[in-house]
């Protein structure tokens, strides 16, 4: 283990983290802080309005203990509580995932471009590090480290959120242990997210490769090249189709070529190749799509593997540019 931590590749990962910690870590933390602040503000608002209206949920007007009633009622319908908790975890995950998508997109777009622009590539290249290792460390950072940090912050945010609720519940005499902490389901949901990380790496490869390719290949404005080319090509193909001239299937072009080259870094983007089943209930659908069996199913689809191979080829091309591009 020590040998791994001290290996040059681990230092490359550390360097990527140092450079991108604002996006990888702090963007997630601040997002979670904002969400937690909203929770606190909602609770305060509720309390203020309650006291203005002179209501009390501690003791009923006729002396009956409302807590006992509430506890009793909830204990008869715990699945509702669990769903609430799951939803809380999933809402942190959704927002964290959206933030991560933007961070990782721009991370890869700049990964092999920013240090050419500020010429610090000349410093990195003065060290005994191969270009393959450099590019490899960037792939691992964006596709593995960033999602792991995101998943970690989601868990921390969930726990903080439930601590806030526990304090609130306890202040009203409700038992937070039976209501919140006795349930393992949200943590199971979290484990599913953790299990999605390796799948994410494979699924995201075509977009990672596409962004790294332009990041390494162009002299300036990698964003324009990376984004305009697929969209313009998609539009052109649609236009040709409109004219009735032989063309590539429009749905395939947008869905398989454009989307896979630009949008595969959206977490859980592989739901498009999943077996939908006939589910109508939203929580059930989410549970179904997050199941280990369905994740394993994605690993058996040609979409995943063809995309991964194309992605790896693009990463190899990016590495070639990194090695041989003359002007920085």
């Amino acid at each position, binding site marked *: 283990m020590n040998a791994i931590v*001290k290996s*040059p590749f*681990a*230092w*490359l990962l*550390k*360097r990527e983290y*140092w*450079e991108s910690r604002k996006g990888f870590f702090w963007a997630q933390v601040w997002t979670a802080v904002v969400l937690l602040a909203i929770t606190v503000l909602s609770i305060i608002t509720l309390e203020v309005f309650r006291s203005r209206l002179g209501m009390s949920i501690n003791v009923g007007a006729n002396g009956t203990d409302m807590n006992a009633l509430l506890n009793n009622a909830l204990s008869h319908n715990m699945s509702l509580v669990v769903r609430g908790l799951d939803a809380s975890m999933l809402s942190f995950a959704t927002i964290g995932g959206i933030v991560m998508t933007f961070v990782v997109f721009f991370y890869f777009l700049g990964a092999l471009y920013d*240090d050419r622009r*500020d*010429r*610090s*590539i*000349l*410093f*990195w*290249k*003065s*060290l*005994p*590090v*191969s270009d393959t290792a450099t590019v490899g460390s960037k792939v691992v950072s964006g596709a593995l480290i960033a999602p792991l940090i995101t998943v970690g912050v989601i868990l921390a945010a969930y726990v903080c959120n439930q601590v806030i609720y526990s304090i609130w519940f306890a202040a009203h005499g409700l038992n937070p242990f039976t209501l919140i902490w006795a349930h393992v389901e949200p943590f199971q949901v979290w484990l599913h997210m953790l299990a999605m990380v390796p799948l994410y790496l494979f699924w995201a490869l075509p977009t990672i490769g596409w962004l790294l390719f332009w990041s390494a290949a162009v002299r300036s404005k990698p964003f324009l090249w990376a984004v305009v080319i697929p969209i313009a090509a998609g539009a052109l193909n649609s236009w040709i189709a409109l004219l009735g001239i032989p063309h590539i299937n429009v749905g395939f072009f947008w869905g398989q070529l454009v989307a896979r080259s630009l949008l595969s870094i959206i977490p859980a983007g592989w739901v498009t190749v999943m077996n939908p089943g006939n589910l109508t209930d939203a929580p059930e659908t989410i549970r179904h799509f997050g199941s280990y069996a369905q994740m394993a199913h994605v690993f058996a689809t040609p979409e995943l593997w063809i995309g991964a191979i194309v992605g790896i080829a693009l990463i190899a091309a990016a590495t070639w540019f990194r*090695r*041989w591009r*003359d002007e920085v």
Partner: protein
Amino acid sequence: MNAAAEAIAEQPASRHASGSDMVVRARGLTKRYKNAVALDGTDFEIGPGRIVGLIGPNGAGKTTALKAILGLTDFEGELSVLGMDPRRERPQLMREVCFIADVATLPRWIRVHEAIDFVAGVHPRFDRAKCERFLSRTKLTANQKVREMSKGMIVQLHLAIVMAIDARLLVLDEPTLGLDILYRKQFYQSLLEDYFDENKTILITTHQVEEVEHILTDLMFIRDGKIVLSSTMEEMGARFAEVLVNADKIEAARALKPMDERTAVFGKSIFMYDSADPEQLAQLGEVKRPSVSDLFVAIMKGTYA
């Protein structure tokens, strides 16, 4: 500094050692860009324990030659650096070769301690204690970001890192451009005092020739992609001479086929000679060794090739 340079110069001229001992050996080195030839089948050799100045006008191929040596560009011809091919064996080569290309190429986001940690992590020949000793002489602090430093401080950090790497070849491409005079003097002083020894070789390109002149042991002039002069400083001193000639002897001076003539004060002229007879020159006036920059100008004028 002069004493140090002379001590070095008195060592046996190792540049005449056999080819395999050479730090750099180029044969027919050629690099073509789309519209131009940057290196035109040039040959040169650099031996161990030398400080070589590669001097040439803009666009002469200096940077391309350095890039080829550092494995940063593809080329035609033969080039061996420390017995390795920079194209194929670049990561291994960079364990023994270090370079400072341009000023201020350290990434702006990095902190002093991060830069040191990182280099210590990836470079097997980096001596952390040494680097920290160099830094203790500066005002840099461990948590300082490059973004917050002046150009001079960035170079101090870069130099501290590079000098703590036990490399066999150090390449400096305009390392002091845009620095003020104090930092420039300090830069070369540190290199001589704390870094250079008989096992190391330093290759420098710079426009500020006067500043490196006294530390060089060897000189290479490059023009139009070819090395047009490669000489030790002693050879250069023995071969080239500059004479301050009074107006009455100007015709006699011209008769000795000077490679360059320029006007000095009080109607005198300065003549430069290549391999002239020292006794004849002494009769013309005061003889001295030409400065590298005057020699450079004379050679680059095209009156001599």
